[in-house]
């Protein structure tokens, strides 16, 4: 079992909040006593009404590392109770309770051998079974949030593991982390920390975009993701329908079930 900081309740103060897309907000929190988190983990947010009524929801964390600064990107769920408050009402200086970091499975850790930062006095013998493996991220809509945390951690560590993101999104204005992803994808693809981004627009593509518009298909997936022969670790996050479709196609394409990690949100 891997040692990790014990999760606990913390007080988070809103440092900034701004629209991420027309339907979502990016919320920067400073969390007193936060032990840091790995890329892909989530936390619980608890809101308390004046009469003591509380509402708690889980959100993926868009940031990682040892800082007490934690970034969320919250999609407004129509008729939701918590997300409309977080997206529309939360202001700088407001405080909310958060519990975390949570989840130790849907995480990606920089490779200690290939990561650019040297670790003095500590050398690991090359172990073929621990050889770095490429990573394929597949996100639908706001499901990209924990995947963005992984891609950012990969870039920050100058990790040499090949990284590729397939991101399915309604339209260009619905892209989360559009500028950051574009910046991560502009570097030399052969350099450590590089990210390749493939976008699938389900409703509307940018003007002049030659790619077909529509939900992802098995053919599109096969043409876009790292092949099973490259033995990538695959992280899939999105709505239940999206994850069920993508994960079963990946199995059909020869990816091993134990190489596919999934996270789903929303109802059936």
């Amino acid at each position, binding site marked *: 079992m891997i040692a990790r900081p014990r999760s606990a309740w913390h007080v988070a103060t809103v440092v900034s909040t701004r629209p991420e897309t027309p339907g979502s907000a990016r919320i920067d929190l400073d969390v007193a006593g936060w032990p840091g988190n790995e890329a892909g983990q989530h936390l619980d947010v608890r809101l308390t009404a004046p009469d003591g009524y509380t509402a708690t929801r889980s959100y993926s964390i868009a940031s990682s590392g040892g800082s007490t600064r934690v970034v969320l990107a919250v999609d407004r769920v129509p008729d939701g109770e918590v997300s409309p408050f977080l997206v529309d009402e939360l202001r700088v200086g407001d405080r909310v309770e958060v519990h975390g970091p949570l989840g130790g499975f849907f995480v990606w850790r920089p490779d200690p051998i290939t990561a650019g930062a040297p670790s003095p006095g500590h050398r690991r013998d090359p172990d073929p079974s621990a050889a770095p493996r490429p990573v394929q991220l597949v996100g639908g809509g706001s499901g990209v949030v924990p995947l963005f945390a992984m891609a950012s951690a990969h870039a920050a560590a100058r990790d040499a593991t090949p990284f590729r993101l397939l991101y399915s999104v309604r339209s260009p204005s619905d892209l989360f982390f559009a500028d950051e992803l574009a910046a991560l994808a502009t570097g030399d693809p052969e350099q450590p920390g590089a990210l390749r981004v493939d976008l699938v627009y389900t409703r509307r593509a940018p003007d002049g975009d030659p790619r077909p518009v529509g939900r992802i298909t098995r053919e599109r997936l096969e043409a876009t993701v790292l092949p099973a022969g490259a033995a990538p670790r695959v992280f899939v996050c999105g709505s239940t329908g999206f994850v069920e479709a993508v994960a079963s196609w*990946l199995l059909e394409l020869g990816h091993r079930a134990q190489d596919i990690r999934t996270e789903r949100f929303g109802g059936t």
Partner: protein
Amino acid sequence: MSFITRGFGGRSRDRDERLPPGQTLVHDFPVLSAGPTPEVDTADWAFTIHTETGVDHRWTWDDLMALPIEDVSTDIHCVTHWSKLGTSWRGIALDTLFADVETGYDYTMAHSYGGYTTNVPLDDLLDGKAWVAFEFDGEPLPAEHGGPARLIVPHLYFWKSAKWVRGLDMIERDEPGFWEQNGYHLRGDPWKEERYW
């Protein structure tokens, strides 16, 4: 340390007393799985209870269907803060499956097709508290919800109700299963909010 969140009113004033603390009522049925959904054919399916004596008690799908089937109406509570009230299931009580099992061990590890595991004390499986369920809402249990058959242990958080269950190993000491190794509580009583460790 709870404090009032500025500007938050909340909506659900008619709080249902069947909802454990920190839970929100849902009417859909969210799916949470750590990996792809395994496809298991009932022709290949079997359920095995393995004890410390090395004896395996094994049921094929047809064996299972020949046992007394119970209708179960129960509330279910997921650690991700949703609860669903009055769900309807059909399945075989673990009491029935354990009727002829001799064991001195007090703990079990549930194993699933696809590799999932979760630990459940034997006491939490007996006396009408747990079932191997194969129908939900009058229909065969869909694969994404654990079909053809899943464990249901509704008085614990729902990650204990292993989807695609294929057996139970009797174990001497309580050991963490899959989510329990990944930060979730060893037992998971929703009324005590045993969510994380």
